[in-house]
Structure formats: C-alpha cells, structure tokens
C-alpha cells in the first residue's frame, strides 16, 4: 500500500497457477503460470490471439477462469468483479480507453466513490497534485475526456489506478496508439512507478519496448506460456542478444516443419500488368481508429500480397476503403485499368473486387438468416435467384446446395440460420459467396482468425488455389506464420502507413518480424 522501496527479492503480489480459460471454439489460456512481483515491470509478449487479453480480463475481474487458482499475497482469491479487483489493489489500463467521454477528467477519476457522497474534488486535486508532481505527469482535471489525446487518456487511467492505491498496474497494449515520444515517456514513468514498489504488467507487441522497459519477460503463444526470461538473465544479456532470444521464442518453434516448404515467390506475379493499384490512398484518422497515410500498393494477377502488422494499425480501414464501405479522401484505386475509388460497394463487387471481412458475424452475415440467403447477401435481386424481384426458392436452394457441397460447409441444412454454424463453416459461407463468378481480386481480412487447425489448413489451401487460378489476392493477417506460408510479398503496416514491403524468402521472417515490432528493416 505505502510506497516504500521494495527490493526485487520480495514475495509475489499475484500468483497465477495453471490458469485455464476457454471460449466456445478457442482455448484462450491453457495452464498458464505467472508470478507478479513488486518492483518489477513484467512484460507479457505474444501475437494476437496468444491469450494476453483474456489473462488481463481474469486479473481485472471481467472474466472468471475455468480452472486454476489466483493468489493475492499468498492467499487464494476469486476476483469476482472489477470492483473487487480494485479493492485487491489491481488497477488496469485497458487497451481501449475506458473513460466516459462526456465526463471531465476529474469526474472520471471520481467514478466509483460511494454514491451518496459528494465527489470530493478538492481531495482529488490534492492527491493528483501529489502523485503527478512526484511522477512528472500533467493532466488537466477540468478537460473533457473526449478532448484528450489517446496518450493523455492513458495517463488519466494510470493516475486512476494510483489514486486507488493499486499495487499492481496492468498496462494492456498501452503503447499501440502512442507516438514515439509518448512511448519514451511511458517507459520512464513505469520505471519511476516500480521504483516506488509497484508491480507493473506491461503488455506489448514491440520487442524494443519489451527489451528497454522490462525487468522480466513472459512469452505467450496460442494460450500457453512458452518461455520466461527472469531479471538476472535479462541484465546479463545485451539488447541484441535478448532480442534474438525473444524472436526465437515468439516466432520460432515451427521452423522444423516449415523451413523445407518456404513459399517460393510466384514467377507469374510481375510479368503481367497489375490488376489492382493503390496510389496515395489517404483517409483521415478518427478518435477511435487510425487513418490511411498515402498508401501505395500494386497487386499482380496470380499474386498473393500479404499485409502484416499489429492489429488496429489501419488494416481494417484499408479493407473498407478498397471494398467501398468508406470513401477515401484522396488518392486513387485502379482495378483492371479502371478507376473505382468513387464506385459503390456493389459496383466494385460487380467489377470483380471481392472482400472477405474478418467480422464474420458483425457485418459479414446476418446471423438469423438461413445459410442459403447469406450466400446471396451481396446479390439480392439479381437473376436467376430473383426474377422480376421475386425470390426463386428452388434456384436459391439449388445454388446453396451446390456451394455447401463445393466448399464443404458443415450445416444441418441450407435453411439453418448461419449464426448456428461454427466459425470455420461461416468462413466457408463467406468464401463461397465472394469467390462466385467474376472475381478478379480478393481481399482477405484475417481469414483464419478463430478457426481450428483443420479449417485453418483448408482455408489456406483455398487461398493458395485462388491465387494459382490467376486472381490477385490481398491477404491481411496478424499471423506472421500464415503470411510467410502463403504470400509472394509481404507489406508491413504501422499506424496507417506501409513501412516496408518484403519479398518472401529465407530472411523474410526476420525482416517482417523486425518491421512488425517496430525495428527498421
């Protein structure tokens, strides 16, 4: 509680033992052990889907583990609610800002006090003054939360945790939206905090941050903890060695299987003129999403071009801009020699541009509609399934039966609501819909996200086949293995900008990996 100087040898504040948590279809945490010690910045590293967010959810009381135990100060506890987590001294700064936009900073900090009380603004001000002076952060208590930059919002959330005497501070991907300077500042702030005896759990994708800010690193992969580097080893290695070791933990492991089958760049790809050209495509960023920063890409027929990057760096915006769901501010998109940036979604589809969204239930399908209609969601009204606008049930059903067979969709019937199918089968419905006649360019957004192994394998094979049949394929993915396995070239996206394009080959793993974690090529 009090901020006296603890030493590294202290007892752990939080101990996780054999924590397992499953969601329908995914095991998010699989027997994870973790110890959080005071005076340490404990870095959690891992790709998207490695199970970091779930772990945070468990610690902050948003979710309950299926099995395993959580001990606080050596006694076993169930963290029932966020309120309970706070009272145990665990404060969390979530990846997506958890401030009420219409309240001021002070009001946000006061949320959670006894409801009958008058918010004690004066006491808050004193406390904030004290903390911010000793830590060197400055916040304007009277500003509205929606007027703050993401970095400022984060500082407010850190402040909130400190005001509540948190002993453990969780920072969930806090740097993903910060400027380099903001990241530096956050790093030194963390150092000052742990020097006061706090424990910090710092979640990040970026290696250099992990290496320069951390005391201890744990690496998660597919829900399991695959390695840990303690403070002693941490100090004994220099940055370069540390980086290599971590890269090995994060991206290695599958070498033995995959190395032989390195994807050979397609010889066709540059021989023909590009089928899709993006030139200077720009989109303003909004308060919740990054924009696009003069994106330039060329895609040749038969080519598989990957877009790598940490989630939320403009990949979705790129897909929306291409599919026509959002209008670009400047630049041009050329499909088969024709400018299409002003065309509607339907016109682009008719012209051969197809988009498989990653949000399969949110926007890709209507979950209460039968599979048969979801196959035709983007062609409503067109013959032969509709004649004179009247539905032709027999044709629709026949079409559905064909696609169900061709794409091996496992469904009780063509009339089953699509929301009842598994993720893999919903993905097959989308594949069948988008690849139907006339496709020239297909954009995949995280096509295997949340799928099990066999569906992942078959989806990847399908993507390969599509490119082999002469279509241009743009594959957006946060899974580096997938990109390395499939693509001819891999572009890396960071904060709405393409930071580099790598030819797939022997060194591609390292090069893309380095670009992805923010190191230069």
């Amino acid at each position, binding site marked *: 509680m009090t901020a006296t100087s603890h030493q590294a040898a202290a007892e752990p504040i939080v101990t996780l033992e054999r924590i397992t948590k499953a969601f329908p279809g995914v095991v998010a945490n699989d027997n994870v052990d973790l110890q959080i010690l005071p005076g340490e910045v404990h870095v959690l590293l891992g790709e998207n889907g490695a199970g970091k967010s779930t772990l945070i959810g468990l610690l902050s009381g948003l979710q309950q583990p299926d099995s395993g135990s959580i001990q606080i100060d050596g006694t076993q506890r169930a963290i029932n609610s966020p309120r309970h987590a706070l009272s145990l001294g665990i404060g969390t700064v979530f990846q997506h800002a958890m401030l*009420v936009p219409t*309240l001021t900073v002070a009001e946000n900090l006061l*949320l959670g006090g006894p409801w009958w009380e008058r918010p004690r603004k004066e006491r808050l001000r004193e406390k904030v003054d004290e903390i911010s002076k000793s830590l060197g952060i400055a916040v304007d208590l009277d500003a509205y939360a929606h007027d703050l930059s993401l970095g400022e919002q984060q500082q407010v959330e850190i402040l909130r945790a400190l005001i509540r005497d948190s002993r453990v501070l969780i920072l969930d991907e806090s740097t993903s939206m910060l400027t380099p300077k903001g990241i530096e500042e956050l790093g030194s702030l963390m150092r000052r905090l742990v020097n006061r005896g706090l424990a910090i759990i710092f979640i990040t994708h970026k290696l250099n941050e992990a290496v320069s800010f951390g005391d201890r690193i744990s690496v998660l992969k597919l829900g399991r903890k695959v390695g840990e580097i303690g403070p002693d080893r941490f100090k004994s290695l220099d940055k370069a060695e540390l980086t290599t070791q971590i890269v090995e933990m994060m991206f290695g492991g599958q070498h033995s299987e995959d190395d032989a089958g390195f994807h050979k760049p397609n010889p066709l790809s540059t021989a023909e003129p590009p089928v899709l050209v993006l030139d200077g495509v720009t989109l303003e960023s909004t308060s919740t999403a990054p924009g696009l920063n003069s994106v330039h890409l060329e895609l040749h027929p038969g080519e598989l071009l990957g877009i790598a990057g940490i989630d939320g760096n403009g990949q979705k915006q790129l897909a929306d801009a291409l599919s026509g769901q959002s209008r670009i501010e400047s630049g041009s998109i050329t499909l088969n020699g024709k400018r299409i940036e002003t065309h509607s979604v339907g016109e682009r589809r008719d012209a051969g541009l197809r988009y498989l969204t990653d949000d399969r239930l949110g926007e890709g399908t209507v979950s209460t509609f039968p599979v048969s209609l979801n196959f035709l969601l983007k062609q409503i009204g067109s013959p032969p399934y509709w004649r004179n606008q009247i539905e032709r049930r027999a044709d629709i059903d026949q079409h559905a039966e064909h696609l169900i067979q061709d794409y091996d969709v496992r469904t009780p019937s063509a009339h089953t609501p699509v929301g009842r199918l598994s993720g893999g089968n919903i993905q097959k419905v989308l594949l069948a819909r988008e690849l139907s006649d006339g496709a020239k360019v297909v954009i995949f957004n995280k096509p295997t996200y949340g799928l099990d192994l066999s569906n992942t394998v078959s989806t990847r094979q399908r993507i390969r086949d599509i490119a082999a049949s002469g279509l241009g394929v743009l594959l957006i993915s946060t899974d580096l293995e997938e990109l390395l396995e499939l693509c001819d070239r891999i572009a890396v996206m960071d904060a709405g900008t393409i930071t580099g394009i790598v030819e797939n080959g022997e060194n591609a793993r390292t090069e893309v990996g380095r670009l992805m974690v923010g190191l230069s090529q």
Partner: protein
Amino acid sequence: MGSLFSEVFLGALLFGAVAAAVPLLLAGLGEQISEKSGILNIGIEGMMIAGAYFGFLVAYSSGSLWLGFLGGALAGGIVASVMAILCVRLGLNQIVIGIGLTLGLEGLTALLHHVQFSRTYPRLPAADVLAIPLLSDIPVLGPALFRHHLIVYLAVALVFVMIYVYRRTQLGLNLQAAGDKPAALDVAGVDVVRTRTVAVLSTGALAGIGGAYLANIGAGIFVPFITNGAGFLGIVLAMLARGRPVWVLLGALLFGISLSLTTALQVAGINIPTDVIQMIPFLAVMIMLVAFGRRSSLPAALGIPYERGAR
C-alpha cells in the same frame, strides 16, 4: 379584444400553465433519469397512470394529499420494478415491455376504477393552496405563480435538485457513465445493473407522483385514461432536453401554456378549437428538431442492455 389582455385573463392563463406543466415536468424529469442511465423507459405512461389511480385511492381513503403522493410514488415504483427486472436485469426489449406495461396499467386502472368508483365518482376537495408571502401579492404574477399547492413548488425545486445531482454528486456521475459508457463505469467498480435499476425506480416514483398530481390536484378525481399521453410527452421532453433538467422545465412550461391557453381562450369566449393551440408546441419542437436535430446527442448506450465482457 380588450378582454384578451386583461389581468384576469393573463392571470388565469399563467396559473393554468403552471398547473398543467407540473405533471409533464415530473414525467420529463423522471424519464430523463432513466435515459441518462441508458434505459429508454416507454412504460412511463403506465407508471403515471398507476400513480394517478393509487395516489387517488390513498388520498381519498386517508384524506391526506401527501399520503396520496406517497401512494402514487409507490405505485409508480412498483410498475418500474417490473420494468427493471425485465429490461435491466434480463435485458428484454425495452420498447415491447414498455408498451406492454402502459397498456396493461391503463386497462387495469380503468378496471379497478370501474369496480370501485364507477357508481359514485368520488371527488377530492380542492387542494390547499400555499400562498407565498409577499411574492403572492404581486399583481397578476403573484396569484398566478405563487398560489399553488406545495407540491408545485417542490416539483420546480426538483429541477434544481436534479441539476445538483447530475453535476455535483457521485450518483449523477454514475448515471451519466451508465448511459454513455457502461463498460467504463463497470471497470471503475460500479455495478451498472444496480445503477440503472435505481434510475428506473426513480423514474417510476416521479412518474407516479406526476400521475397522482393529475388526479388529486389537477382534476380532483380519477377517471380512466386520465394521463392521456402525458407520459409519452415526458419521453419527448426528456429526449429533447438532452440531459438538462432546465430544458425539461422550459419544455413543460411551453406545453403547459398551450394547454392552459386553450381553456383560457374558451373562457374568454374566443372559439378556436383547442387542437390548434395544442399543435403549437409540437410544431415548435419539430421545427427545432429539423433546424438543430443533426447533432443527436442521446446517450450512446441508450436502449442497449449491458452485458459484462461482451466483446
């Protein structure tokens, strides 16, 4: 035409406006609490009429108007608790349940009235008036504005209480957070469901008092369907006021004046159908909506049930 601007006419007009505005004000302030916390309370008409009936019943059998208001608040609160369980806790559709409650309570109160009062049609004596010293002696304005039942002043005072609650209390912060970003409230350690339940119950109590006012002070009698859309008007007022109590007051007065104007004109012998004047506030509001409605600033989570950790 001289009579139109006579002191008597103006006085009656203002007096009537205040009297007619009070139930709308209570309904609007009540609805505002629910909406602020993210619940679209369409059942408020039902809560009002429950309050009108039960408030009248209690006042009539006890002889005390204050017990009547208490009864109204209680009845409104009970109806609201049904809404809270079904819509806040279980997350059922707020519009379906709201309309269901309104229909059911309109029917039920009419039925009970039929059983109990349809032969006797009992009336309450005219309510006591509290004349505020000095102020009530101001010519024209005095009798119009400062000779009302105490509940009228309390209702107006409630506007300022609510301003205080919204801006200066922990409860106010919680309510706003529950409507604008419930997840943020949850991680700050406040139970969203509990906060919204409190809001819906308060709405019910205030609507019930508003209903009791309609029966006990406005009419002195309960008749079936006495609320006649006052609850729905409350919804309109709350949505237009965008979270600010003062705007509910102004809106309620606007509608109150138009209601009062129709009676006043008839008394003055000018024969304009009441409907013409009743249209004016709606017209004004629609015009305002067309002109300024572009920035719709309803709470972001209005009408959406909260589920922790839903991604």
